[in-house]
């Protein structure tokens, strides 16, 4: 069954209230789309141009209000859904992930286990190009890397497109929006930009599913995903686990284990 038929069927039966997928956007692009009635399913498309991580919609209150949704999910969205389950933001029964194969055929992934098994067949999340960029940054001296990020973050306008497109930035009240006290300066000056991106990178360390949507979302083209990708790679190297691999994952930075390899913590 293809995606349109599946969406029509799910909406007709009332199994889900909306099918979250992609439709044609401006200039041949693809963009997120909500099909809420069977007649709207015809709009849905699914191809390699569909890149947005739709899992970021699942935790939005506007989406939750609709009821249960099916999600035509790319691997990045599936990883995010697992991570959201691990962080107890959603439960299996809240969402019906749909995997679409190369022939356009749809498979339901109704359980975390089904998602995990499906993802096990997918290649790793980091693209060759991003791997190369990470390696290049990793080889720079600290001073050079600092200069690189100062240049990039100097262009940031603090529109929060990176945060808002991130499936793991689901906090309804983000630290950036706390103003009693104001932890991080609001204006987009050097300190405000730096603190924002530092905080975000640290909050995503061990939680980033490496979909790259933050970098794609940036209106001024800052490769901001490299910060969280790098933090995620560091957590993987230190703790041997990756965000989005399982619905049962202890957060590396807040989990105590008696057999921790570091002696200072025991």
């Amino acid at each position, binding site marked *: 069954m293809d995606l349109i038929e599946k969406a029509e069927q799910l909406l007709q039966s009332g199994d889900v209230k909306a099918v979250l997928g992609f439709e044609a956007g401006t*200039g041949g692009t693809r963009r997120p789309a909500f099909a809420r009635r069977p007649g709207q399913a015809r709009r849905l498309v699914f191809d390699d141009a569909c890149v947005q991580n739709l899992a970021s919609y699942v935790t939005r209150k506007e989406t939750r209000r609709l009821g249960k949704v099916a999600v035509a999910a790319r691997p990045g969205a599936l990883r995010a859904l697992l991570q959201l389950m691990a962080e107890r933001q959603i439960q299996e029964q809240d969402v019906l992930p749909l995997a679409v194969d190369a022939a356009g055929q749809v498979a339901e992934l109704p359980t975390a286990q089904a998602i995990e098994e499906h993802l096990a067949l997918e290649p790793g999340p980091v693209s060759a190009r991003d791997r190369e960029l990470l390696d290049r940054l990793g080889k720079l001296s600290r001073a050079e890397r600092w200069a690189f990020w100062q240049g990039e973050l100097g262009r940031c306008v603090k529109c929060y*497109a990176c945060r808002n497109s991130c499936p793991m930035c689901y906090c309804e009240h983000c630290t950036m929006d706390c103003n009693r006290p*104001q932890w991080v300066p609001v204006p987009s000056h050097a300190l405000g930009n730096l603190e924002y991106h530092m905080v975000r990178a640290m909050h995503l360390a061990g939680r980033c599913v490496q979909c790259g*949507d933050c970098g794609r*979302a940036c*209106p001024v083209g800052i490769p901001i995903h490299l910060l969280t990708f790098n933090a995620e790679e560091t957590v993987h190297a230190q703790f041997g686990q990756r965000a989005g691999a399982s619905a049962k994952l202890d957060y590396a930075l807040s989990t105590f284990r008696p057999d921790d390899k570091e002696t200072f913590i025991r």
Partner: protein
Amino acid sequence: MADQFQLSSASLDALFTALQGDGRRILAPTDRDGRTELNPVQTLGQVARDYVQTALSAKETVFPKVEQLLSYSMAPGQVELVDAEPRALPTVLFGIRPCEAGGFAALDAVFNWDTRDRFFNARMEQLAIIGVACTRKDDACFCTSVGGGPGSTRGSDILLTPAAGGFLAQVLTDKGRAIQALAPELFAPAAGLAAPLAEVPAAFDHAALTARLPELFDSPIWDDQALRCLGCGACAFVCPACVCFDIQEEADKKAGRRLRAWDSCGFAMFTLHASGHNPRPAQGARWRQRVYHKFATYPDRYGMLGCVGCGKCTRACPVDMNLQEHLTQAMAPVES
């Protein structure tokens, strides 16, 4: 009718030299690391070619993303208050599109609505705009739907239109004539034919839209359209006509400063009351506000639209909240 002249590329380069000799910096779109963005240039050769738009708008030349308004220090029994002075450099904005040049009027409407904002005005007084008409467009452009056009002169002091060997120049204002007076010999009598301008068919009737919006206020289309919206500020921050700002106090017990920074009605925080109540509690209400402010409030209050149809918001949006398309949909809200 404005005075028309011919400016060869060599003459324009000489004009750049004359402008710098007059102590003005020239900001123009440049191609850098795959991005087209405004940067200081010295020669015409440094200006980007074949661009449709820069990602950010030129509004930052008069309304920067952050600026200091005042600073203060406190000691027992006394407060010292220091007004910040606007940093207003003599500037020529070269090569921006007619839509963007028209956007300054929307900023002016707010910054000079009741109080004359001395920061905005100091910079505007130092700014001259040499716009370049569009021979290309993309799918996000909709200037003709909002009263503009690829060759619109509105907002430009001089408007250039590409022509064989250089440009046709329309000198439109006193600021434009002052630039011409720096090197009048460069402005030859108009001879050549201008290149054909981009064809941007009008997609909707903005007057009809403005007339219709009041009855659509409670329509479900805003919630429907906004389901996709992520609630970031990319659209507002790239918009040449978006003027909302936040006032931030950065202070400790002894000293502080007051800053003005860009803000966006798309943010949930924008209307959050101290009580915790938010009159725009969901993204649909915030998206509606964006549309209404530009197409209902602006015409009502300032007699102009708060949108110039440049399409920057559409291009910047991570999820393609295409403004032209959504407005067209609002004019015919029929859903399958």
